[in-house]
């Protein structure tokens, strides 16, 4: 009983603490104090998230927990609710916030950009947490917009022309996607008279308004998640952002929209979804895997490779739609497909964050992000290259990593539901991931001394930044993320059990 009370009262904290920190670091303009505030509150935030997770696991009922803001109650007020899926996402956000905050303190330590970075950073974290615990359709819209605005502004921090163009396109795409979502909310409110997700789910009756609403939601959110034909904005935005921003964009921001889409497809409006539509999304996902991997193989800039790899990896998660829809024949969020999808989200988030951090370190050390300039980097940055390789192993899906378990679960789900053709795409995608990872590793181990090219080609090439030594925190945080990826692979049961209550004790 006390445990339930605690988890409910802790929920608003993970939204409001980052929001307050955003204001605080905006007011406290000095670098020294900012550093203390950032690290202190990142630790506090992590502690709160861990407490919530432990309480949730200990509560044993494994059901969704509810907190009513201002004691108003559902139809009028806004409720915060956590179930298994949101607990996984909240813990993931907490962990990545801590690690990326530490990374950013070192990354921005000698740059004036830090002053502008931190308020936006905490705003983004607040938006993410608000989205994951919100049970109010309109509140989710607000959270989506906070995330979209903060993320676009963070991309623009780099203030090169490419970054500004990417940020502007990212912002417009985000606003468009959110407006489609808002249109759906208006339609849902008209037909249900409530904004509470659980109440909408209870009163859904498979009618035309609901179907129109799910079409608007799907269209808007697919644009924000960058599924294959709508992916055009993602690679420039993710590749031109500062490194910690690239990491959180690929690891969490796209997953936030994905979370909302999964919530609506399988919990709120699952009566209104059809097998044909889910098959269509599956085909788009499969195309995304093949196309994204191919573009990643062709790309010449390290960060662009990783950004296209995100396009490909997101495709895997969309295989959830056909697999889950067909398997249960009712399209509920049950079975191995949904577990696979949740696990894939976590595995990809950790691996991709590790990869962006290590790639950022390699670029800092080399002074250029061009892959051709990475020749022989294995000698100078062995640790960061090792982290890159571990993250790559997870993306390819080789055994000791989290990516292996994720792909294994997806393969099992595709065989179980009798749709074996998806498993061909999954395996082919793994091979293609191996192609672009191996290409980079091959160059990294190529010996420079045998070539005529000078070691530091300052005179012959224009470098993005000057080659420099790397702060130990930058390397250490990347290592922690790589170890997390491995630990997730070895101890997969933990996440799978956490994700399980979504299936049994779901909000329905």
């Amino acid at each position, binding site marked *: 009983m006390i445990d339930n009370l605690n988890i409910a009262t802790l929920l608003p904290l993970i939204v409001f603490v980052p929001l307050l920190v955003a204001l605080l670091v905006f007011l406290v303009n000095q670098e020294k104090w900012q550093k203390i505030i950032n690290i202190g509150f990142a630790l506090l935030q992590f502690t709160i998230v861990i407490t919530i997770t432990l309480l949730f696991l200990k509560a044993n009922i494994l059901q969704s927990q509810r907190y009513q803001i201002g004691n108003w109650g559902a139809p*009028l007020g806004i409720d915060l609710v956590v179930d298994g899926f949101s607990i996984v996402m909240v813990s993931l956000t907490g962990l990545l916030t801590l690690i990326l905050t530490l990374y950013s303190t070192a990354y921005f330590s000698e740059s004036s950009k830090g002053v502008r970075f931190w308020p936006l950073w905490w705003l983004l974290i607040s938006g993410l947490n608000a989205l994951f615990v919100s049970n109010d359709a*309109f509140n989710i819209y*607000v959270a989506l*917009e906070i995330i*979209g*605005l903060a993320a*676009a*502004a963070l991309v*623009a921090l780099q*203030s090169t*022309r490419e970054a*500004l*163009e990417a*940020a*502007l396109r990212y*912002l*417009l795409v985000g*606003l*468009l996607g959110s*407006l489609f979502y*808002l*249109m759906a*909310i*208006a339609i849902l*409110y*008209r037909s249900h008279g409530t*904004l509470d997700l659980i109440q909408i789910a209870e009163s859904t009756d498979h009618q035309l308004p609901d179907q129109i609403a799910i079409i608007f939601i799907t269209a808007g959110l697919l644009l924000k998640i960058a599924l294959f034909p709508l992916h055009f904005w993602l690679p420039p935005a993710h590749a031109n952002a500062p490194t910690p921003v690239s990491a959180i964009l690929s690891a969490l921001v796209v997953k936030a929209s994905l979370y909302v889409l999964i919530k609506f497809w399988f919990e709120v409006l699952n009566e209104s979804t059809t097998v044909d539509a889910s098959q269509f999304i599956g085909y788009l996902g499969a195309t995304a895997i093949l196309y994204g991997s191919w573009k990643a193989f062709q790309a010449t800039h390290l960060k662009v490779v990783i950004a296209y790899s995100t396009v490909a990896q997101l495709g895997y998660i969309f295989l959830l739609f056909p697999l889950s829809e067909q398997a249960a024949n009712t399209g509920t969020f049950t079975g191995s497909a949904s577990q696979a999808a949740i696990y894939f989200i976590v595995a990809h988030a950790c691996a991709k964050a590790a990869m962006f951090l290590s790639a950022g370190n390699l670029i800092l050390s080399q002074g250029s992000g061009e892959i051709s300039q990475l020749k022989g980097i294995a000698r100078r940055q062995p640790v960061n290259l090792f982290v890159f390789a571990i993250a790559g192993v997870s993306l390819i899906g080789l055994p000791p990593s989290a990516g292996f378990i994720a792909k294994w679960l997806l393969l099992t789900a595709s065989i179980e539901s009798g749709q074996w053709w998806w498993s061909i795409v999954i395996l082919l995608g793994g091979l293609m991931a191996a192609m672009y990872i191996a290409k980079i590793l091959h160059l990294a181990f190529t010996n420079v001394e045998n070539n005529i090219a000078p070691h530091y080609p300052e005179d012959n090439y224009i470098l993005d930044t000057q080659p420099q030594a790397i702060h130990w925190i930058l390397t250490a945080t990347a290592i922690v993320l790589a170890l997390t990826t491995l630990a997730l692979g070895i101890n997969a049961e933990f996440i799978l059990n956490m994700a399980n209550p979504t299936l049994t004790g779901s909000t329905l």
Partner: protein
Amino acid sequence: MNTLLMYSVTGVGLFAIGLLGLIISSHIMRKILSINIMGVGIFMLLIAFAKQNGEIADPLPHAMVLTGIVIAAAGTALALNLMVRLYDMQQKNRGSLDDR
């Protein structure tokens, strides 16, 4: 044609016009305006829905519209800021490169 239907049709119409404008226009300023028009269309729809049954208007959609306006203003401000920064950068490049 009753008032509710008229407002709803206008709202959907504005949404469609904005979407069309966003797709076909190439200038960033026009794109930003188009997105704002789409937003206004949805707000119109929400205000119409607030009066759907009975004489007393439902305050919840009004609150949503107010919040929506604030968000639209923030988004527009950021987009305009980015646009101006890009424009400045282009002007500078034009000064140095004569062949443009």
